[in-house]
């Protein structure tokens, strides 16, 4: 380690403080807005700190009284949970066999490349036929329909991550089990999958984050509480009759909470997932 001059140390700490401020200020402000009285938020000069913390908006949004604004918000929260849950489970179900196959049989790797290349397609290029197709199947404004569409966004990523995970599990272990007389599926179940569990967890979390974030398809393919997701609900709230900016901020905090918690808890796994994709390019 090189010895640092005091000036350089001060410089480092200065930069670190700046970076922390850049990262934290907007997020802190989102939270402060959510608990500030509406009058404070419209004050000039702006009041940066609420005179009294006001958590009533959280109550408003999380109330489930029938036919209320809260019910509309909680139903979108529920839809987001259902859709990202279903899409993630399905994406893993597709990714595990496919990822293993590509990992053990590189000759078919080009098919995975094709699948991953679909990421380049702008959603607008698929939206019209998808809209017509879902309409035909009666899956518009339906959580299953949206989950099906999300599946195609999540599956390429999860398959890629699973493949990387299986790559790091030596084939020899599987071969040894097979010699002992275990069939393929038995081997996978007893040997490979437990070893790949951490990767599966990372993939699942990635998938949840991706699904939770999606907006465009949800905007087009859902129309009301039966399927509308959180992202659309927030965009509606922000674009509509907003006498109270704090309410929008509250919705933002609530929608951000699950992914932010996942991000903080799973930080290491997420970064290694990201870079494993990155380093191998």
């Amino acid at each position, binding site marked *: 380690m090189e010895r640092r001059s005091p000036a350089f140390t001060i410089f480092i700490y200065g930069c670190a403080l700046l970076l922390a401020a850049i990262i*934290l200020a907007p997020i802190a402000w989102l939270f402060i807005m959510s608990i500030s009285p509406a009058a404070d938020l419209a004050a*000039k000069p702006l009041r940066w700190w609420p005179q009294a913390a006001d958590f009533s908006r959280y109550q408003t949004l999380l109330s489930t009284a029938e036919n209320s604004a809260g019910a509309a918000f909680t139903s979108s929260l529920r839809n987001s949970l259902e859709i990202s849950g279903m899409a993630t489970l399905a994406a893993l179900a597709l990714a595990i066999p496919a990822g293993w*196959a590509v990992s053990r049989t590189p*000759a078919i790797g080009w098919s995975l490349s094709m699948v991953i290349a679909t990421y380049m397609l702008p959603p607008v290029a*698929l939206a019209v036929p998808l809209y*017509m197709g879902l309409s035909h199947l009666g899956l518009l404004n339906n959580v299953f329909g949206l989950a099906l569409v999300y*599946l195609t966004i999540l599956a390429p990523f999860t398959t890629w991550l699973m493949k990387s995970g299986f790559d790091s599990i030596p084939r020899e272990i599987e071969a040894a089990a097979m010699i002992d007389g275990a069939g393929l599926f038995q081997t996978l179940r007893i040997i490979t999958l437990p070893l790949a569990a951490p990767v599966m967890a990372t993939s699942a979390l990635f998938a949840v984050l991706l699904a939770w974030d999606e907006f*465009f398809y949800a905007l087009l393919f859902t129309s009301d509480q039966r399927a509308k997701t959180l992202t659309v609900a927030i965009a509606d709230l*922000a674009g509509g009759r907003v006498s109270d900016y704090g309410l*929008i901020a509250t919705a933002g905090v609530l929608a951000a909470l699950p992914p932010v918690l996942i991000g903080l808890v799973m930080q290491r796994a997420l970064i290694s997932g990201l870079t494993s994709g990155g380093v191998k390019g």
Partner: protein
Amino acid sequence: MSSTWMTTRAWLLMLPLLVVMVAVIGWPLVDTVGLSFTDAKLVGTGGNYVGFDNYTNMLSSSNFSRTLVTTTLFAVISVAAEMVIGVLAALLLNQQFHGRAILRALMILPWALPTVVNATLWRLIYNPEYGALNAALTQLNLIDAYRSWLGEPGTALTALIVADCWKNFPLVALIALAALQAVPRDITAASLVDGAGPFNRFRFVILPYLAGPLMVALVLRTIEAFKVFDIIWVMTRGGPANSTRTLSILVYQEAFSFQRAGSGASLALIVTLLVTVLAVAYAALVRKTAGSAA
């Protein structure tokens, strides 16, 4: 076990994924190609065959060229800024200082924030009458009157880019940081002994380790920036005076607001083609970088 069986088995395991992808992406894509040669409306009849009319109309419209420029500006500037700020942040986080672990953990926050929440948050910050940005700049005496950040063509796109950049630079930083930590200590030490200056050390010793991972981040971010929809939809809807209207917003308008599915499809395919060209060019670049870094 024969290798034919191995391959067959692999295909069988791959099959469910392929079926879903072909059904939900492949078929619509083919259908979009078909639609793009018709004057179909969104709801109702299939429309009549109109040949390349949709394409020629679109490519020659001033809306398209202007939107293409806006999209390119958005993508190039935001991705470049994310790369530079991201790498600088990573270099900082690679130094030793108290609180480094916490700061590194915080970096994940903007990235984890849903895009729509990020857009909403920044729209509130930029609010011309009651926004935090105007308040902060005025109280610091940096501006003397409140400004309309999202209402002036000169600042609206920049304001969007800042919001996009804030959310995405931490990802670049984290990827770069992971790569930096893979740089062997003795190499940096050796370069110090050789008397290399900080800039040269970065350029010749560290950058080669970063090049690969950064290229991948660059490709992904550029493609995403080119497809951008959410953040613009929430913050400006393409205004003021269409100065922030990107290609995806234009396609939405054409296909869904005006219900001209046919010409919307042609425009969407033009966008797809552009992104593909971009990706292929990048892929070649990635291969070249990987080659030179190895």
